[in-house]
């Protein structure tokens, strides 16, 4: 007698088809956005400004569409989120639809190790056991009109990139004060057992943090045989000192090379870089963490002061931001005075960075310099930065993180080349600072 096997009855409850799943709940979308941000697909800078209550300014004409895609609205499948999802799908070898299909959901369901997918940084095992570091110069180069003053400013700019993302501060001292990071320009054999190889070849080298390398730990040496400059464009055969310095200081702080092309710690030199990549930031924060903000004062773009109003064709204050058109072939300076609490909870605050939110509509309108002041004292210079396009959260660090006494000012040096009016347009949305 054969055994009869009863087939299980079909469940009456129908499972939701993952292929059809579109997150409808705002909380689900926020989870997705958080995941995409955590793993490097959604720009964490943009997400800082995507509050549901924020009213996006209303710029003229076609600029509105570009502005929309730059902002992230938490809880909504907006353009930025869909774009980030497509990037995620592409990276994981999925069909880049921007939709949560079965394959994408399964991939998202997989446990991640917590390390950003796009983070290819690599860290040495050593790190500094203090956050206030000093640096000093044994000597200087005089290539291409470089002077000690210009070199001090250039290296402070390089250190400021790392200072703006970590609890670290970097203060210049005399070489005789036994700085943590000793800097020198040398050719050939120079006493550390690792000679330079002349023009071309190794441009510089830097030692990892203590305890390895003894007295050399953290030190950075630059090959004097190279042709150093701080100008942009650098010109043929010349090497940007700020970029190489920032790269070397990454090693001085404990970073190895990164696989991410475009990052500061990518091994190849491909011209001037004035900013850290998200991968660099992830790497250095992996070692030292971030900083805790005590105060973050901001001011609207409508408060901008123009040094040479006659060099503008037009300036309009719309809502809380300002848009202006520079006359062709002119330069100008714009200034923000940031209302700054210098003392809070009986403690005098320190400056970590200034932050700007602006955009230009072409490379005919460029931000060249950003200088940061405490009262009338300049505390940081970011020069030859050549910024154009959308810059919705651009940080400009202050390497030595000084105490604030008289109130922060930000001065922005700009240039306008010949072009259409729209090409010579700049929008300033707001300016702020992080204080600790």
């Amino acid at each position, binding site marked *: 007698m054969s055994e009869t096997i009863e087939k299980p009855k079909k469940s009456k409850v129908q499972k939701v088809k993952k292929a059809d799943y579109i997150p409808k709940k705002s909380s689900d979308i926020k989870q997705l956005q958080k995941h995409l941000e955590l793993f490097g697909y959604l720009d964490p800078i943009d997400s800082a400004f995507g509050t549901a209550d924020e009213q996006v300014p209303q710029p003229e004409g076609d600029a509105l569409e570009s502005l929309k895609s730059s902002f992230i609205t938490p809880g909504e499948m907006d353009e930025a989120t869909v774009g980030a999802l497509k990037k995620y799908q592409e990276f994981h070898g999925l069909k880049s639809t921007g939709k949560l299909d079965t394959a994408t959901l399964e991939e998202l369901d997989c446990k991640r190790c917590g390390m950003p997918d796009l983070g290819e940084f690599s860290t040495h095992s050593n790190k500094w056991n203090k956050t206030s570091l000093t640096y000093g110069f044994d000597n200087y180069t005089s290539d291409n009109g470089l002077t000690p003053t210009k070199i001090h400013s250039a290296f402070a700019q390089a250190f400021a990139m790392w200072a703006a993302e970590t609890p670290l501060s970097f203060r210049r001292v005399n070489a005789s004060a036994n700085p943590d990071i000793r800097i020198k320009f040398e050719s050939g054999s120079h006493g550390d057992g690792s000679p330079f190889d002349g023009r071309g070849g190794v441009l510089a080298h830097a030692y990892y943090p203590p305890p390895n390398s003894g007295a050399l730990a953290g030190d950075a040496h630059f090959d004097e045989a190279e042709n150093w400059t701080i100008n942009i464009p650098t010109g043929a055969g010349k090497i940007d000192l700020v970029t190489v310095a920032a790269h070397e200081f990454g090693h001085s702080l404990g970073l*190895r090379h990164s696989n991410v092309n475009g990052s500061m710690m990518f091994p190849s030199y491909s011209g001037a870089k004035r900013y850290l990549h998200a991968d660099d930031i992830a790497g250095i924060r992996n070692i030292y963490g971030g900083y805790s903000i005590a105060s973050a004062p901001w001011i609207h773009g409508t408060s901008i002061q123009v040094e040479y109003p006659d060099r503008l064709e037009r300036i309009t204050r719309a809502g809380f931001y300002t848009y202006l058109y520079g006359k062709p072939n002119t330069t100008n300076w714009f200034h923000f005075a940031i209302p700054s609490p210098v003392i809070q909870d009986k403690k005098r605050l320190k400056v970590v960075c200034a932050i700007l939110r602006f955009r230009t509509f072409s490379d005919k309108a460029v931000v060249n310099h950003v200088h940061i002041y405490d009262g009338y004292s300049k505390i940081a210079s970011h020069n030859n930065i050549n910024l154009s396009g959308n810059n919705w959260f651009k940080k400009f660090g202050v390497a030595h993180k000084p105490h604030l006494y008289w109130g922060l000012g930000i001065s922005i040096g700009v240039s306008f080349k010949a072009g259409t009016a729209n090409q010579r347009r700049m929008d300033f949305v707001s300016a702020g600072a992080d204080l600790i």
Partner: protein
Amino acid sequence: MKLFIPLLLLTGLLFGCATRATTQIDSNTHNKFKSMERQKVEKKKGIVGYWDDLGKYTISFYQENTIDGQFTCVVPESKMVPEELRTAGAQIIFSGTITKDAQLPPARMGGEQVFLLVELDEIKSFNNN
């Protein structure tokens, strides 16, 4: 007879070590890493250095298209490098075999990779090339 073969082997070993001493490391360290991957280096432009802490010469060569990438090869015996080239900063062309060795110190600088120079087949001043 019982002793003949071991003696023969021992003799061969001793003579073998003696003939290789000028171009290879000693037999003890050789045996430790003979199973590790070795890489040939052919007519590379390099530069001689000297690590005080190890008391060893090094030959470093540049990793193309990098800011600071270099391979630093520790020379186990000074006599492998001709006396006239035993100067920090001497630019040379060399060929040989390198390998990783766990007993070597870690890289001291960003972009540096440290190897042991197992065999040095050829070395001459770069200026003479």
